[in-house]
């Protein structure tokens, strides 16, 4: 029996008295590229934090490939091949770009907590880290400390770190925010490429990117999903236009 990649049932999140996520239901089938849009403060990042285990949910249920994952710590969820990126860059600051990528590969390559193997002599590991480096166009920054990278390069490394472990469900939180046009174009192409045959859930403000990549779109407003549909239908949805698209220049 096959399950959806991700199923959220009546998910709630409260921070004290603040009710931020207010009953979200969402089914994302295997292999779909799904975009979540919505105004600032709607709870998009919070939703990612709940799915990835960073925060506990207050109510409801989250299933990954049919298996309940709510309550699991982030590293156990990650080992079930769900990986996420962060809206605010979240890297290993005092390590080089290459080291960041290699660390992101270690668990997936089965090294665990081993202290009897030298990373330098692990051929497959290093080759894959180099390929990843090439993929995110940071070869010439290979030995630069992450904290010294430009903003755009940090965003690229953020994506690289997220896709490194070979997850099959990938959550990207505003991957192209702050990138130039060329950088965005390249990032979109990269995202397409690395999420081939995978499930992608992406929060994005750039509507060009959203309508370009997404198979379906969900609109989150004040902690509730007011519509989930294919891009053309979302464009034409009156409630969405009223609540979101119609209000800003984002709709371009």
């Amino acid at each position, binding site marked *: 029996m096959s399950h959806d990649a991700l199923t959220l049932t009546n998910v709630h999140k409260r921070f004290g008295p603040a009710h931020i996520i207010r009953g979200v239901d969402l089914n994302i089938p295997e292999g779909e590229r799904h975009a979540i849009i919505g105004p600032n403060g709607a709870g998009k990042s919070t939703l990612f934090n709940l799915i990835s285990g960073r925060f506990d949910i207050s109510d409801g249920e989250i299933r990954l490939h049919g298996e309940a994952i709510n309550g699991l710590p982030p*590293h156990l969820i990650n080992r079930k091949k769900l990986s996420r990126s962060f809206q605010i860059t979240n*890297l*290993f*600051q005092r390590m080089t770009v290459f080291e960041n990528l290699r*660390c992101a590969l270690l668990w*997936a390559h089965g090294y665990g907590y081993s202290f009897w193997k030298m*990373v330098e002599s692990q051929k497959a590991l290093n080759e894959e880290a180099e390929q990843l480096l090439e993929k995110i166009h940071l070869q010439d920054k290979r030995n630069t400390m992450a904290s010294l990278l430009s903003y755009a390069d940090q965003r690229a490394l953020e994506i690289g770190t997220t896709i490194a472990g070979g997850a099959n469900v990938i959550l990207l939180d505003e991957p192209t925010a702050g990138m130039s046009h060329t950088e965005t174009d390249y990032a979109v192409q990269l995202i397409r490429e690395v999420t081939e045959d995978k499930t992608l859930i992406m929060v994005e403000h750039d509507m060009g990117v959203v309508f370009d990549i997404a198979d379906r779109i969900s609109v989150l407003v004040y902690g509730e999903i007011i519509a989930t549909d294919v891009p053309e239908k979302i464009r034409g949805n009156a409630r969405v236009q009223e609540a979101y698209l119609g209000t800003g220049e984002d709709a371009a």
Partner: protein
Amino acid sequence: MQQTAKSQPGAAVGFLRRYSLWIAAAVVVLVLPYIFTSGSSISMMSQMGVMVVFALSYNMLLGQGGMLSFGHAVYFGLGGFFTLHAINGVNNGAWSFPLELMPLVGGLGGLAFGIIFGWISTKRAGVTFALISLGIGELVAASAQMFTDFFGGEGGISTNRVTAANEASIFGFNYGPQIDIYYLVVVWAFLATILIYLLTKTPLGRMANAVRDNPERAQFVGYNPRMVRFAQFSLSGFFAGLAGGLFAIMFEILTAENLGAIQSGSVLLMTYIGGIGIFFGPIIGAILITWLQTSLSAFSEAWVLYFGLMFVFMVMYAPFGISGIIMQHYLPYKTGLLKRLLPAYGIAVIPTLILLVGAVSIVEMGYHISTSYLPSRPMDLFWVSVVATNAWSWIIAGAIFVAGVFACRWSYRKVGRAWDDVNETLVERGLA
């Protein structure tokens, strides 16, 4: 460039070049006892070797894992006590075990307690971790007063390594002379240093850095930060215990003090002053501080105060320690820009000395007055006979100090400008 395939000698040269630093260090430590031949130097150098291992084990926590421990002497001391009991066991005929391998007993003791206490303390990082380590340090120090069979109470536990070595020794030495101990320490210290270095290159070592930088992100690449800290902590306990074992063999006695707060503070200072950001930093710190402890304490009763002042200055002005200062000069050295810094440094030396003379005079006179039976008796200060109870002595010392402060401010500005110039040039050349 040679076209021929690399032959044996080529490989040997490659090996020598690659490990040149390690080989040089090995040669130096083997030759040192022929240069500093006195008993006290050899015993000081042995102690340096022990402290190098202890400080490196501490930096596995602080520098590599981002764990600030106030109780690392627990593992050092416990390792030492286990070693003493193991040696006494040989002397009692309870078992037989070569003296050369006794530090392993200390290491395993440190590892065992590293696992036990590490499980508790690595649950959290940051301030919580630091406080738990302090608590465990106090707890073990208090236990040492209670379990006198194991810790020996006031008098501590003592042993005789020579009778144990006569009972069982791999190389047939009796380890009576200090020089035998020196070589025993050096071999173990060298081995431990290599192992601790190699550990930094393993998946665990890399992830220890990652968890230090960003424990949260480590979770999102599949690692449990607590397990990373725990494994790193346990292994660090092993090397601390090994150092404690060497210490026990060297001094043949340990008291509860050796696992107490002062010893824990001491290793923190050594490691920090040497520099926590670079692998060899703690080695420099351990050697320098051991030397200062030995030589300053012979010179002045106020040595702990100087020690504290030095630590405060490092924290404020050179947070990356001595190794950090050295590495800062690496790029200027490589690019030939060092010569632009040297004149400013030369000018800064004299004001610094003046400042030090003034400060030391004030401290020493203060100490003299408060500790001497006859404060008005003249004392020697920088080869001058001074009466500390005379107001003029204080005025002059104060004037020297103030002059030193102003001269330093002036000359350090020059140093700052020289650095600005060097950094600008480096940026122009696209190197920084």
